[in-house]
């Protein structure tokens, strides 16, 4: 089955198929380019009629991708580069995404692969840079319309959560972002992280426990499963 995805980048027209990408040549005359575009668009239309299509909106996933990139890199500039590269690769590879697959977990997998490829290329551990993330908090413009006290409390709470998450290991940070913020299922997380389902569950449980300790340090916790050990 032939899959097609058409998109325009920097005023150039690409057609992506499972076998490669074709580009309207800049050496074409304007008339030739118009003719080429019309032909390619009609091909896309033919494909659309033959196989129902759905659309994915990359902008919907940007906050999630950015949060995940920060969880991996802990560096704003690197996170921004990671998101850009992820979107670029996703656009190029859109033809390989099947309609029934999860676009979100596909995008997170791309981002993670890019990050770990970069790490391998550097052959060194990533430099840990303390984040200066002023202005990256969510919905700051919208917050101004809310009750000022509620906004104040919300911002404090938000900052506490972000500070606590920053203190987790990379392994814990990424699983918290994928599960608690992006809502990926255990199965989807296992695919993104390329690990067994049981590992996802136990890793998430440990990450949450650590996060609880960081956030609710004064809470007295009774031993879990105490009664069952008897």
């Amino acid at each position, binding site marked *: *089955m032939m*899959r097609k*995805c058409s*998109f*325009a980048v920097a005023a150039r027209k690409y057609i992506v198929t499972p076998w490669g990408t074709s580009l309207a040549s800049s050496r074409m005359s304007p008339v030739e380019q118009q003719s080429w575009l019309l032909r390619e668009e009609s091909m896309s239309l033919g494909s*659309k009629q033959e*196989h*129902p*299509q*759905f*659309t*994915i*909106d*990359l*902008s919907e996933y*940007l*906050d999630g*991708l*950015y*949060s995940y990139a*920060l969880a991996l890199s802990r560096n704003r500039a690197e996170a*921004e580069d990671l*998101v*850009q590269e992820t*979107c670029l690769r*996703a*656009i190029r590879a*859109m*033809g390989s*995404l099947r*309609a029934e697959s999860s676009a979100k977990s596909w995008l997170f997998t791309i981002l993670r692969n890019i990050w770990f490829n970069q790490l391998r290329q550097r052959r060194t551990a990533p430099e840990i840079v303390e984040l200066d993330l002023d202005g990256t*908090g*969510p*919905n700051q413009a919208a917050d101004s319309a809310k009750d000022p006290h509620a906004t104040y409390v919300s911002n404090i709470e938000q900052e506490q*959560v*972000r500070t606590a*998450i920053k203190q987790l290991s990379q392994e814990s940070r990424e699983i*918290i972002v994928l599960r*608690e*913020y992006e809502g990926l299922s*255990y199965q989807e997380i296992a695919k993104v992280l390329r690990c067994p389902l*049981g590992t996802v*569950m*136990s890793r*998430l*449980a*440990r990450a*949450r*426990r650590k996060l*609880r300790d960081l*956030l*609710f340090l004064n809470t007295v*916790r*009774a*031993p*879990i*499963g*105490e*009664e*069952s050990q008897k």
Partner: protein
Amino acid sequence: MSFYDKYRVKTLRYLDNDLHGEELDAFRNHLETCGGCRASLEAELALSLLLRRSRPLYSAPDWLRSRVSALSGGDSRHKVAE
């Protein structure tokens, strides 16, 4: 998976409505007798609510949105065929 991990995982799965049938009944029975797991359940619930209130964790900067939109030729929606 350690004994403690097993119950932490069950607590999370319970909160996610991922326990069913006998497994669900067994966990409910366990909760009735185990104060530690009840406390853990309450703490996990409190954590889930706190994390939910703090969504999204970070917002992508506006310039990055513009950049991705430009990469997409001004329209970030992409068609995917079956």
